[in-house]
């Protein structure tokens, strides 16, 4: 079954479903495992033939896992090296592949299930990057699912592993468990009250990393932040999961307190800010993706605080991704340059937020 990009573009995937525990603040829970095949060099030293052979072996493992019926989700295999640039960008926006996989060269692939809970990248920084994610705060379920998939893939291959150092990875920052546990949070009130930097510094002190929406090195977009473990060696997967899971309720509490404070101390300012954001999104004729994310963030908080009543969270969540450049082009069914995209984006927002005198979209 090939991947249907048009069908995919219309939906919003697991992580933007807006369901699951604490989903007003916690967007998604995600775990990834880094694995390498023992019999090949790491990606930095592979020949083209090695790359192709790794891809072939792992493609067969994915097919075998589908055939075995022991894994509940069917994985759809996508040869990333054959994709157009806009389709690769689309998968990056959707968080199904990394920028690194999108922009590298040679044999590489990803396997995805139709609910977008799983994404298995082949020939990224490591031979294998297995990812699983859930909407809301639910790391334990994600771990159960990903470790089962890891076992299934491993059945006919030998992972690079040694007793002392655990799973061997291309970068020593991932060695040991090879696990990255991350929770994506929406923290607009901590940003408005300028407490976010303080929060980050205290997280860094306990060895947790903070990144913006689209991973390493990128700016936080729309006040979305990913909290993840920094170390991977010397603690078990369960301990590392717990380390991240334990800090999330504290962050949720801080964000809630900051929201309550804003409601209590500056209700009018807050209501004005949210309403203006909503007004612009419903009426703009041309709008950039940065401004859209910034305004959608205020609207999302406004909906959660009951200040906006006629639009629902899943719609807002969907708009965060649907207004990204590659999504807009897939949805419009044509290539658009930057200024045409800004017009298309404004039209799309008006249509879905009930501008132009229409009703806002109900989910």
């Amino acid at each position, binding site marked *: 079954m090939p991947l249907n990009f048009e069908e995919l573009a219309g939906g919003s995937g697991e992580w933007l479903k807006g369901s699951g525990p604490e989903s007003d603040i916690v967007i998604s829970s995600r775990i990834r495992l880094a694995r390498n095949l023992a019999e090949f060099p790491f990606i930095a*030293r592979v020949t083209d033939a090695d790359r192709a052979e790794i891809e072939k072996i792992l493609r067969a493992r994915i097919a075998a896992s589908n055939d075995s019926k022991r894994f509940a989700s069917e994985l759809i295999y996508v040869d990333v090296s054959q994709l157009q640039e806009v389709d690769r960008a689309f998968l990056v926006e959707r968080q199904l592949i990394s920028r690194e996989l999108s922009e590298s060269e040679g044999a590489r692939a990803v396997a995805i299930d139709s609910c977008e809970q799983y994404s298995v990248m082949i020939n990224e920084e490591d031979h294998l990057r297995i990812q699983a994610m859930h909407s809301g705060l639910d790391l334990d379920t994600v771990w159960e699912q990903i470790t089962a998939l890891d076992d299934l893939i491993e059945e006919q291959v030998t992972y690079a592993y040694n007793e002392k150092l655990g799973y061997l990875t291309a970068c020593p920052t991932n*060695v040991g468990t090879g696990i990255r546990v991350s929770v994506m949070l929406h923290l607009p009130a901590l940003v408005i009250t300028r407490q976010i930097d303080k929060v980050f510094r205290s997280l860094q002190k306990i060895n947790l990393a903070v990144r913006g929406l689209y991973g390493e090195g990128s700016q936080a977009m729309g006040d979305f932040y990913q909290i993840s473990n920094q170390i991977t*060696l010397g*603690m078990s997967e369960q301990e590392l999961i717990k380390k991240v899971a334990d800090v999330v309720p504290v962050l949720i509490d801080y964000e809630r307190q900051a929201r309550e404070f804003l409601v209590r101390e500056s209700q009018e300012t807050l209501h004005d800010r949210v309403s203006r954001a909503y007004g612009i999104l419903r009426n703009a004729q041309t709008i950039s993706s940065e401004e859209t994310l910034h305004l959608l963030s205020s609207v999302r908080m406004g909906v959660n605080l009951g200040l906006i009543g006629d639009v629902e969270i899943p719609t807002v969540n969907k708009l965060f991704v649907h207004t990204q450049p590659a999504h807009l082009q897939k949805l419009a069914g044509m290539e658009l340059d930057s200024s045409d995209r800004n017009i298309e984006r404004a039209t799309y927002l008006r249509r879905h937020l009930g501008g132009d005198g229409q009703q806002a979209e109900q989910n």
Partner: protein
Amino acid sequence: MKCQKCDKQATFHITDLVDGEPNELHLCEDCAQSFLAPPPGESSDVMPAMAGLLAQQLAVGETAEELARLDKQVCPVCGISFREFRKQGRLGCPYDYTCFAEELDQLLLNIHDETHHVGKVPKGFGADAEQQTQLIRLRREMKEAVANENYEEASRLRDEIREIEKTRDESPSVESD
């Protein structure tokens, strides 16, 4: 309420974390801004990339003799030198963790504060991962032998590779259930 640092009206109520303990502060906008600004010298970039951390760790001891010594340290399996690893931050093959063990131990301590794995063990562990790693060296040597038109050596290496690959394909030990 008045600002704790000047006489203006306090409009920012900040919960500061000092060693994990919350500490309430009530400040005016100006005082709050200077309080929340990152201390001088500290980067305002609040999102350090993992790679940045690694680069920092790798940037120690860059004298000429040191670099020459690191140049000579080469992995016999994949051929990467320790200096190349330091430059790109990515290792060349699983065996690097063995042949650069001494240098990496300090690095791992700096990054993870630990040098021993705790946690999941692959189900198929025991299927000889070390022997599999030798395939990397043999394939590289075979490629070099062909390039040097040393066909006798290449064919010997090919047989050795096939032998190991055969044990891989026959290993039912990793089948679960």
